[in-house]
């Protein structure tokens, strides 16, 4: 008599072996002709778009054919070794490089629909749309209030009530309001390093930018102040698009939605941060984020 096996008959195991992703995982370690770009980046609404960007300091080329998209209401980190061009590219995003002599830029940078480098672009208006926060906090030798109100004042805003509203809104946005609301007339120089950096962020927010560019904003801060700025970045992305240059791999992993890795002025790879830090497509990216570069 044939006895039935009481167990349910197991389903055959279907091995799912995806085809090799040749576009994401080149066989050799040679730098690819085109950077690796995660498709998710390409399908998101775009706030910033860099197209075939080349930048020269005199005869020295610092950026090579950079193509990049930054999604709206997202945080993108630029990472790479010193001199790789990440800060240079960041400064291209609001034409800060115009302040340096002998700089030549080729290619296009679009902020929304605006071509930043088109003839006749109003650079002052542009910098209002894309504010910058620097490595070292740089409060003006003025009161906390006047630091935040400064951008609006130079735009001609003189109404006290409007300025007060903007200062309060910006300081709240930067997570600083509760700490300074009772001493707005005090000198900004008396704030701690972390508070000064958040004040600079508030100053950038006051003119209601669309994009906030941050160049190593936490490199001079202690871990507690760094954590507050990182929390702030994650809150601000609901309203703004943020691009941050950082040497801190863990910071890039913590705060950014997308990460772009640069080397020698070239964009090597960009993609979702979790993928870049768990399974990068390019060997150079892996070597850099695991500390084996060079």
């Amino acid at each position, binding site marked *: *008599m044939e*006895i039935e*096996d009481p*167990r349910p008959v*197991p389903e*055959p*195991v*279907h*091995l*799912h*072996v*995806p085809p090799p992703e040749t576009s994401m995982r080149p066989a050799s370690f040679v730098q690819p002709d085109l950077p690796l770009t995660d498709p998710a980046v390409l399908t998101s609404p775009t706030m910033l778009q860099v197209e075939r960007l080349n930048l020269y300091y005199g005869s020295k080329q610092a950026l090579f054919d950079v193509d990049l998209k930054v999604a709206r209401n997202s945080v993108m980190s630029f990472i790479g070794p010193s001199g790789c061009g990440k800060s240079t590219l960041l400064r291209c995003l609001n034409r800060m490089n115009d302040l340096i002599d002998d700089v030549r830029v080729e290619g296009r940078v679009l902020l929304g629909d605006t071509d930043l480098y088109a003839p006749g672009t109003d650079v002052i208006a542009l910098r209002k749309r894309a504010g910058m926060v620097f490595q070292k906090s740089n409060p003006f030798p003025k009161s906390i209030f006047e630091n935040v109100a400064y951008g609006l004042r130079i735009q001609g805003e003189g109404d006290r009530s409007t300025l007060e509203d903007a200062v309060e809104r910006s300081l709240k946005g930067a997570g600083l309001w509760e700490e300074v609301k009772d001493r707005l007339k005090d000198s900004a120089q008396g704030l701690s390093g972390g508070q000064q950096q958040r004040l600079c962020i508030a100053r950038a927010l006051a003119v209601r930018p669309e994009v906030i560019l941050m160049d190593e904003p936490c490199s001079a801060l202690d871990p507690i102040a760094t954590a507050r700025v990182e929390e702030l970045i994650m809150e601000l992305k609901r309203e703004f698009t943020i691009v941050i240059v950082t040497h801190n*791999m*863990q910071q890039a*992993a913590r705060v950014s939605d997308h990460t772009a890795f640069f080397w020698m002025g070239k964009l090597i790879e960009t993609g979702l941060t979790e993928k870049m*830090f*768990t*399974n*990068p497509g390019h060997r150079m*990216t*892996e070597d850099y*984020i*695991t*500390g*084996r570069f060079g």
Partner: protein
Amino acid sequence: MRQFDQELKDLRDGILAMAGLAEQMIDLTIQAMMERSRTKADEVMALDRNLDEWELKLDRMCVDLLALRAPAAGDLRLIASSLKIVPEIERIGDHCCNIARRATYVHPPILSTGSLERLGQETRGMVRMAVDAFIGSDAGLARTVIKADDSVDALYGHIYRELLRLMMADPLTIERASHLILVIKNWERIADQATNIAEEVLFILEGRSAKHTYLHEDSVE
């Protein structure tokens, strides 16, 4: 070699040593069953303590590496998967003990063929291949292990039905057959553990989960 690379090598070497111990336990378990050897069964159970010690040591290494080195990419996958591989090896030891302690209860033999030994050997082969795939970073070998699990499952089903048949035909076999059902279930579980290790190897090497593939066949990564 960088200090971190040395620490990763120590982790891999530790897993290799632990897996070697598990393979030794499997060999002894097969011998204990075939020879009805209480001595070898006791050896298996004594070795289990060493395996448990390895588990604690390697767990601690992994947690230290995560806390102190903030690993990324391939390093992160190696450490994260090691945290899963180590308990799989430890469970292999437990299953060996479960089999070995029944070595003296399953004689005289009631299974007419060498199917029981074959189940042990096939399972042993899967464990060996899974460990080789880990050490040699061999994705092809890891996939071979996963495929081999079907063969072990089929053999398990075949012996299971044979034992039911024997128990129905002769009630005097029920006690031995009951022990044997637990024995073959433990072998089948060891094969599952080898499969799980192979899936972790694929994750380490390729960065995508090889588990429950039916769940992400339709999804877009």
